[in-house]
């Protein structure tokens, strides 16, 4: 900020001298209409003005000059520095003491105010600095968290890509060994050869499923899931999923309960059927053989259809019920260690959630009947 000329140090003395002179001149011109008391008050006011603006030393100068002018021009005999009456001496002395004291007091008050102002600015500056530092720190923390998340995701992806690749590579090299002949020669019987090729076939499919899942997830995350909505029947969607899931539910009992006269739903039937299939697949994977998987569909209010898939497995702990919808999260890896490592991709529920939410529906997890097992519930609007 540019300092004005009035802020200079010497300006206070100049103003003190000029203001006293000017005031004296004005008071002199109005002459006979003012008495000594008025003059002293006016001059005192001037001293206060100088003190509050320029501080104690210019105020002191103003006080002395005002005293001299008061004496010279307004106390008889005029135009001399001598004073005739004793009471005028007292008036002059009182004036001087009042002027100096008032001047010093108001100058001090001004300094205090300035100090307070400086303190306030300092606090503001510190506050701003702290706030910036805090913002920088939390930004860095967020970055670090996101880097950590990225690396955890990368670990999960590489593990899921590498595992089938390892089986494929080991199978292929075993087969190659036999064909190329080695020392000692290797002989694989027909069953072994078929087994190796089956592994290659199955693991290639697994890789392909995983990659498709990745693509689907990427699409959902980019908001590019293209739904082909048609009017469809809920029981058809469920039965499509069930017939596809037949091979994986061979060792389970499946119970289906669909409310009568359900309204049609305007959804992407293929996508919603995929969700149902994923839920059946999970239920079969995580519940004991021979147990029952229950599917149901019913109205929930006027505008929603609610579908559930329930199993008799170990269930999912309360605190994990949100997290299982995170990509690559597998409840059994973090919690229950008594079950075998699941063979899923860790993407099924994340994709299911993406599909349901794209339909303006909701998906969540509850405990199954009697507090046991897992019940996955989702809703889709009927759009009637």
């Amino acid at each position: 900020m540019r300092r004005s000329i009035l802020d200079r140090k010497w300006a206070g003395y100049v103003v003190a001298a000029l203001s006293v002179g000017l005031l004296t001149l004005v008071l002199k011109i109005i002459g006979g209409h003012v008495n000594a008391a008025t003059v002293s008050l006016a001059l005192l006011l001037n001293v206060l003005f100088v003190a509050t603006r320029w501080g104690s030393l210019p105020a002191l100068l103003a006080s002395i000059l005002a005293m001299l002018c008061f004496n010279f021009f307004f106390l008889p005999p005029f135009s001399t520095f001598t004073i005739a009456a004793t009471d005028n001496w007292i008036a002059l002395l009182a004036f001087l003491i009042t002027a100096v004291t008032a001047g010093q007091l108001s100058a001090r008050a001004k300094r205090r105010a300035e100090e307070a102002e400086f303190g306030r600015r300092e606090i503001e500056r510190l506050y701003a600095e702290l706030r910036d530092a805090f913002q920088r720190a939390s930004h860095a923390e967020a970055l670090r968290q996101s880097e950590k998340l990225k690396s955890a995701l990368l670990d999960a992806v590489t593990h899921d890509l590498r595992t089938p690749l390892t089986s494929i590579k080991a199978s292929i090299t075993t087969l190659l060994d036999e064909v190329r002949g080695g020392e000692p020669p290797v002989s694989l019987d027909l069953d072994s050869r078929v087994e190796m090729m089956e592994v290659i076939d199955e693991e290639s499919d697994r890789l392909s499923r995983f990659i498709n899942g990745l693509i689907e997830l990427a699409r959902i995350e980019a908001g590019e899931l293209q739904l082909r909505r048609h009017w469809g029947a809920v029981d058809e969607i469920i039965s499509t999923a069930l017939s596809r899931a037949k091979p994986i539910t061979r060792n389970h009992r499946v119970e289906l309960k669909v409310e009568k006269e359900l309204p049609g739903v305007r959804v992407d039937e293929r996508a919603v059927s995929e969700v149902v299939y994923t839920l059946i697949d999970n239920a079969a994977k995580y519940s004991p053989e021979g147990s029952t998987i229950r599917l149901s569909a019913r109205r929930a209010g006027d505008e929603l259809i609610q579908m559930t898939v329930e199993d008799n497995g170990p269930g999912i702990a309360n605190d994990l019920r949100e997290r299982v919808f995170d990509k690559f999260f597998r409840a059994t890896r973090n919690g229950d260690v008594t079950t075998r490592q699941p063979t899923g991709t860790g993407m099924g529920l994340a994709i299911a959630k993406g599909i349901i939410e794209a339909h303006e529906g909701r998906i969540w997890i509850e405990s199954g009947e009697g507090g046991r097992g897992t019940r996955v519930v989702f809703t889709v609007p009927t759009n009637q």
Partner: protein
Amino acid sequence: MTNQPRILVVDDEPQLTRVLRTGLKSHGYDVRVAADGLAGFEAFNDWHPDLVITDLAMPNVDGLELCRRLRAISQVPIIVLSAKGEEKTKVEALDLGADDFVTKPFGIDELLARVRASLRRAKAPPVNEATQTTLDSGDFHVDLETREITVHDKPIHLTPKEFDLLVYFIRHSGKVLTHRTLLAALWGGNYVEQNEYLRVFVGNLRKKIEADSATPRYILTEPWIGYRFDPGQ
């Protein structure tokens, strides 16, 4: 058949154990598989295999814990299956007493070569180091009493520490030796973090025994892990 070497494969990935069972069987090994460390340890006690191949990340008892438990009761050779990025766990497993590792994905030949080497080392008759006076391994001949070493019949001159390091390498030919193992064996437990000691001594040793120390053929570097000594023919 009783003369077939027995191999226990411990991995939670059923497809891989399927392949390894068939692949190893076709090469004349008797194979059993277990799906986690706990089952692996039980199978070991039950069956007394000649070699254990184990994955590192498994439910229940993981590969590290299995190594620890096996080493407490047995000197059976252990080969660890690990993935790139698991270096820390791999080194831990080797420090716990695993003999070797194979990085996923691997070809069956690579695994078989490690299996053969580990079995060969395990089969070698135990040597009484206190009464042994000479050491012959590949291109190396060592006289432990006069502390003379020849490579390809050419004498080489080593400082006492270099001599000890080379003898340690020769005695553990073919085995992966972690930095920590070497430092603890030659310098003592207080030096296990001083990798640069080792780097300097290995560098000097290579200059003296390798034809070209930039492309060593005897003391091979296992990046981030340690060294492996190949005594040559």
